[in-house]
């Protein structure tokens, strides 16, 4: 061993170095520390809270308030308090009920289809095949399309005179499918599902990765066929993801706007007049803030009820691992 053991050099200065801050020799009172922590927390949360207050909570409250007032036909005149009658009138109006119905149909058309297709693609792309990465990129590619992009593409392709799809389906010169009351909503739904396919695929793929391979192997050895494997292994393990996708997917579909605006502007004959578009219409075309306010509150409540209902209904069916 060397004359000076390396540890020797570490012998501390018995008086302790001053640069090692001793801090206060007197204990900072606990109260003051809590005060400072409180202040810090407040400061950190303040920006978010201010924005939420101004742009989320205040509007909600104000719109509830506005629901009780008739908007005057001419600007400048004061709003006229009418209590519940406006709410009653709007909620029972044909326009609102139609929008409600259209919105519900839209949710029904887009959410299950998007889920199932996303899952199907994810399962197919989950295999260990050569070049599977290419397919994965292709299947997730629509996530790069925004609502506007997808809508403009399909709007052009569905052009009744010269659009490609019109040509393919032999309907050139005739009514575009977007102008046909029977098919318009379906068409918009197809565009929506296509546009969401990428995201659905990515979410389902992420969820699939959580399914342990050894479980699948075991079931395969146990002789389970593809469908049985799906039912008993994949779906239960996937249930948190499915739950998430259903809840979030429903919320998003209730808020759909862009594709309606570009593809059909609510028509033909109000057949694609989803709630959000109807609200937009009330505000910008009818100038009726009062009615619009009622509808926004209705939309909010519907979203809330839907979500809570889904959570109540589905959460217990979800198998969480660990």
């Amino acid at each position: 061993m060397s004359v000076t053991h390396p540890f020797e050099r570490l012998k501390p200065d018995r008086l302790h170095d001053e640069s090692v801050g001793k801090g206060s020799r007197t204990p900072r009172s606990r109260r003051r520390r809590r005060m400072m922590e409180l202040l810090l927390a407040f400061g950190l949360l303040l920006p978010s809270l201010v924005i939420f207050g101004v742009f989320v909570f205040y509007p909600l409250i104000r719109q509830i308030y506005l629901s009780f007032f008739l908007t005057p036909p001419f600007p400048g005149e004061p709003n006229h308090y009418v209590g519940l009658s406006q709410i009653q009138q709007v909620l029972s109006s044909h326009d609102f009920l139609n929008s409600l119905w259209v919105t519900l149909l839209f949710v029904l058309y887009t959410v299950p289809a998007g889920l199932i297709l996303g899952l199907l693609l994810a399962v197919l792309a989950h295999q260990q095949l050569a070049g599977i990465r290419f397919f994965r990129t292709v299947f997730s590619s629509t996530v790069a399309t925004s609502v506007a992009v997808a809508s403009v593409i399909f709007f052009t392709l569905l052009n009744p005179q010269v659009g490609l799809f019109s040509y393919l389906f032999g309907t050139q010169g005739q009514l575009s499918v977007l102008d046909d009351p029977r098919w318009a909503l379906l068409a918009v739904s197809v565009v929506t599902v296509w546009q969401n396919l990428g995201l659905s695929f990515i979410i389902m793929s992420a969820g699939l990765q959580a399914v342990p391979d050894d479980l699948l192997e075991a079931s395969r050895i146990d002789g389970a066929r593809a469908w049985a494997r799906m039912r008993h292994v994949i779906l239960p393990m996937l249930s948190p993801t499915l739950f998430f996708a259903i809840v979030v997917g429903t919320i998003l579909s209730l808020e759909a706007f862009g594709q309606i605006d570009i593809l059909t502007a609510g028509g033909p004959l109000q057949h694609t007049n989803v709630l959000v578009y109807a609200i937009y219409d009330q505000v910008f075309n009818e100038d009726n803030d009062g009615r619009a306010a009622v509808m926004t509150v209705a939309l909010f409540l519907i979203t809330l009820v839907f979500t809570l209902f889904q959570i109540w209904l589905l959460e217990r069916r979800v198998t969480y691992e660990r």
Partner: protein
Amino acid sequence: MAQVALKEVTKRFGDVEAVRDVSLEVEDQEFLVLLGPSGCGKSTVLRLIAGLDTPTEGIIEIGDRVVNDIEPQERDVAMVFQSYALYPQMTARRNIEFPLKNRGTPKDERERRVHEVADALELTEVLDRRPAQMSGGQRQRVALARAIVRRPEAFLMDEPLSNLDAKLRTQTRTELIELQRRLETTVIYVTHDQVEGMTMGHRVAVMDRGVLQQVARPTEIYDHPANLFVAGFIGNPPMNTITGSPHSQNGDLVIDTVGGSIPLTPAQQDAVRRSGVTTVVAGVRPEHVVLDPDGPIDATVAVVEALGYEYHVVCRLDDGQQVIIRLPAEAVVPREGEDVHLGADPIRLHLFDAATGHGLAQ
């Protein structure tokens, strides 16, 4: 003057009492081991000293001041964690200098100290690596270095060796002992490994279920355990315990057990009489049990374990209680199934109250 002192410290988490009424004084430059099974509260005590938790009752002193209300970073103690707690995105160098940087140590001073410590712990080559690129042993040394570089009043170590493989553990154990002697600093060391406890500490504080059982030098703990728990916890193979009741036999007090009657020294007899205990646990360490044809205890050999450097002979009494004997390698070893007689020098006997586990004073 004690370097670290706990005075009647209790810590409750909700209804659970993790630490109960612990009073302990650690001397300056002492290596104190807090030993006990998992869940006994030893880590909680360490955290209380560090300031990561505050005691529900009691006072903690470091140096000459009460630190109950002082933040961890101001207590001048450094801690080495079981998981090392190295900052994963920082190099070893950054990890080690982190505590200095936060305290405003000037750059050259920082670099000097980091180099000093890295040199001493043979970390110079890995200074610019991240924890993920180091071996377990290197990571452990970085954690150590980070603590040393601060030159604190006391080191707190929470099972720092438990994540190392056996060989590295023995090696590092010796290095840590050397380190503490050289640094002449106070170390409070938590472990569940009794070998570490016995070999490393100046004194050992044994804890069980939040309560301090005994604080003494290792030899004292081994030769005079204060209660059944300590007796059974320290020593491998553990101390043999046989339950029996005191019985007067020809004027002398003996302990009647299933295997036979155990004679006591006069002092022991006094102690038993004074305590008024009706059921006694007699304990004797495996190395003190002998095969004696005149021995008081009858037993049957169940298993003979040959370890190469010695034998462990496991014997059973009629009711299934077991007694283990350690025999040197060259001894004549009985066969399995043989009936034997066991005895021991009464001086080597430890007596405990069966009800409370307390040792009976002799």
